């Protein structure tokens, strides 16, 4: 059976792409953020994943508001990046794994998660930038399965539902007969708000408590409604739902391999964690 060797959860703001394009990784503003990633790359070199399941939210590249799935799973042989309107360079295409995708889809629908399946799908910065932070030479050494969560248009799925989706993805991967090593990535957050008079809202106390909960109390955030999560973490901080999906794929007990937290990048509190299953 396939094995989930760990999760990487990280912020994904577009400005990271701008900083990479301008070579600003060592700039005093950006250094505290980019310095979080060499340990992630060392960890990846050690655990050698074959497949990355990327849990993220689309920001109006693949999906428009004409059709907005709550949960969508990619089932394409290849996923391309494209222009999102503000000129960050696009990255090379990602190889898919349609067989594993369809297995995950079969398993999730079998558990009554009603999905949208995508045999063609473009992936935006929420997918590409975390990958580029893990593989800065843009030579992806892994196959990918995109899992897209609606964090854009309410009603959003609850944190509890997202956590349970992650648990179901974990069971799907465990029942795959191949011997792949899988890393699940969850991207977005942490606290930030782009819009309204409350723009610039950041909540360090909440973020640190949330990151701590990822280790020993993974269902902690499920006590909050999505509106409460907006109040606590901002209108886009609610992207932490993608972290909840990723965390759900791991058992209750985990080991923290690495973490980083820095305020601000662009308008965002950036969080990064690498967790491994324990026992």
């Amino acid at each position, binding site marked *: 059976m396939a094995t989930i060797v760990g999760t990487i959860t990280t912020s994904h*703001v*577009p*400005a990271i792409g701008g900083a990479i394009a301008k070579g600003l990784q060592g700039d005093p503003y950006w250094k505290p953020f980019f310095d979080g990633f060499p340990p992630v790359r060392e960890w990846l070199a050690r655990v050698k994943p074959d497949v990355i399941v990327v849990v993220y939210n689309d*920001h*109006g*590249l693949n999906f*428009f*508001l*004409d059709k907005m799935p709550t949960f969508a799973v990619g089932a394409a042989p290849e996923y391309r990046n*494209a*222009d*999102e*309107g*503000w*000129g960050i360079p696009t990255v090379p295409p990602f190889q898919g794994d349609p067989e594993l995708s369809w297995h995950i889809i079969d398993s999730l629908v079998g558990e009554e998660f009603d999905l949208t399946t995508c045999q063609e799908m473009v992936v935006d910065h929420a997918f590409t930038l975390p990958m580029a932070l893990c593989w800065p030479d843009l030579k992806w050494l892994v196959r990918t399965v995109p899992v897209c969560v609606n964090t*854009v*248009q*309410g*009603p959003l799925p609850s944190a509890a539902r997202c956590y349970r989706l992650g648990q179901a993805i974990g069971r799907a991967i465990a029942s795959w007969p191949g011997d792949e090593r899988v890393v699940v990535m969850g991207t977005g957050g942490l606290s930030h*708000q*782009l*819009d*309204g*008079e*409350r*723009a*610039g809202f*950041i*909540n*360090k106390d909440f973020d640190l408590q949330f990151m701590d909960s990822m280790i020993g109390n993974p269902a902690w955030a499920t006590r909050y409604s999505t*509106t409460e999560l*907006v*109040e606590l973490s901002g*209108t*886009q901080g609610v992207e932490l739902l993608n972290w909840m999906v990723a965390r759900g794929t791991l058992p209750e007990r985990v080991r923290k391999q690495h973490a980083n937290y*820095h*305020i*601000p990048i*662009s*308008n965002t*509190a950036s969080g990064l964690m690498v967790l491994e299953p324990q026992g």
Partner: protein
Amino acid sequence: MPTPNARQPVPGTTIFDGEQARKGYALNKMCYSFNDAANRRAFVENEEAYCASYGLNPEQRQAIRNRNVLQLIRAGGNAYYLAKFAGIFGLDMQDIGAQQTGLTKDQFRAKLAAAGR
């Protein structure tokens, strides 16, 4: 600042729900089109005609004309789509944040940095 209510309980915040999505559909659809460089050029070349082709209502048209983010949100705009509109003018999220909060960009950046201390 809009008064909080049962549907929008967070002060200074318009949660993008079904009501906003209906109200802002034409505006967000136009902003979605700005993923394509040719459409960004077409907007710049003839803003009036481009807005008309997406059927913006007068409130949306005026908010676009004013380049005013709070007005665009009131007209149903979604932050992720409005970011594509802002991109046409080379504005980043801190420019947008400063405009909405009535701060200079430096003041807005200082406010963000202060949240980390």
